[in-house]
């Protein structure tokens, strides 16, 4: 992909993000932060590439360390979000 295509995706995604986040109810702002935290760990893609590549031992170990850090975030972030969301209940009628 060339730079312009990537930039286009990025700009469009910013607009999508803008409208989607404004529609999030304020009561769920803490889960919003927890889940955005989890999904921003998609950076693990880069970490996995580095960890899988041969050619530079330094790069590989940095990659493996980044995989550990991002995994903490992914599993922790989704789990804690799920835990919070499970608590939101409506009035028993």
């Amino acid at each position: 992909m060339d730079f312009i295509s990537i930039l286009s995706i990025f700009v469009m995604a910013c607009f999508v993000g803008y409208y989607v986040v404004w529609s999030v109810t304020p009561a769920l702002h803490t889960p919003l932060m927890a889940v955005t935290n989890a999904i921003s760990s998609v950076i693990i893609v880069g970490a996995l590439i580095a960890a899988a590549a041969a050619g530079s031992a330094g790069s590989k170990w940095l990659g493996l360390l980044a995989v550990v850090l991002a995994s903490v975030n992914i599993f922790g972030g989704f789990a804690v979000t799920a835990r919070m969301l499970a608590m939101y209940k409506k009035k028993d009628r």
Partner: protein
Amino acid sequence: MCEEAIPGGCAQVADAMTSAANAALPHAATPAWAMLAYLASGVLFILALRGLSSPSTSRAGNRYGMIGMTIAMVTTLVTHIPVIPGTEPDEFYNAVYWDFASFGEILAAIAIGGGIGWVIARRIAMTDMPQLVAAFHSLVGLAAVLVGWAAYLNPEAFGILGADGQINPVSRLEAGLGIAIGAITFSGSVIAFLKLAGKMSGAPILLPLRHVINLGTLIAILGLTGYFMTDQSLWVIATITVLAFLIGFLLIIPIGGADMPVVVSMLNSYSGWAAAAMGFTLHNTAMIITGALVGSSGAILSYIMCKAMNRGFLSVIAGGFGAEAGPAGEAKEQRPWKRGSAEDAAYMLGEAEKVIIIPGYGMAVSQAQHALREMADLLKAKGVEVKYAIHPVAGRMPGHMNVLLAEANVPYDEVFELEDINSEFATADVAFIIGANDVVNPAAKTDKSSPIYGMPVFDVDKAKQVFFIKRSMGGVGYAGVDNDVFYMDQTLMLLADAKKMVEDINKGLAH
């Protein structure tokens, strides 16, 4: 694009492009199915945030997020199976050449990190959510720095090596920015974590000339990142990294405890931009979409928080709020106020028709949410209407109070936002303030010289009776300003630990 002006021209160009790509990157050329998979995970992440528009759809949204992440990870693992060094690109699909030891290491790394994350998420107390989120942000930041460095050390693996054997200049810019933003996110989040966890004083730490130092460091980082495009020496990227770690630290230490909602949102935003910058480096759609989503999300939350305090974003970031206002009540005249007891409160609450509860950070500190919900249950049993009113900046992170009330099984349809409930104080018999202060201060409406002037506040003065739970008359909230609500005729101060006071009220209500 490619007209057939020269016969065979298109094919030649295409051939040249493919062979150039293949020569530079053995198996980094992403197959079409993988690109589609990354796109799908990006879309699933959008749906994850979309689900949060209501509690009833949010749980499904979270599952979409998990599916999206699984797709992204599996796609990367499958397209980047480690191969034994020296293997030809064509041999990639032949398992004989796979390097299973490296593959095992990667799976072990995921298992270790995932296990740690899972255990933390299970055990963390809900009152500790702000510091947990800050700690998680720091991990994303550090991971971005590490990935950026890994890309610098092994550009071939990331497909960013140019034909001249150097890293593509644009990729250098993207990786440099990713490292810089990641490092700022990391050190800033570590300071935010220490302040939120109470391991470091929440008071602003003001260095002399801090604006000059900060601005100078920022300019140096940007300048060096630009210079990195022309010179890919190690010292350039190393200096960018060190300076960015430093500025993250310097930016957050002057910001006080109650401005942390803005800081945590801002760092949330940064972690997104760091992921987006890395997505540019890797040409990865999932990372770019996610980065943009998270970046906008954090930016919008910061905006909401600033607006709820009537403060400019820059003034929050400049820091020092609350540091200038000297010791509380020093030069103030002593005004008369009335002290109430748990028995008084229990009696009057029981006689009321409508009670509005305003929780604040003090409720979180004393873990009073469960006792508070019991109180509401006892009142409801007596036929009293109970509602909760939440200010956008109550607590230490956006939505902090809502989570704590949800934890205590308060139904979310009894919990209201500022603008939805403020008109109801006029018809309320009791406004019950527990651990909040600045968000009910009428000075925000009347006193132009007050540091919180213009901040939207609850009109508790319109309620017939006000109960104000506070530990002592000494502290006067974060902004360091006196609160007229203490001295109103209809106010009874309930001076005690919030949880203990509510439990005493419950005893009074029970019989």
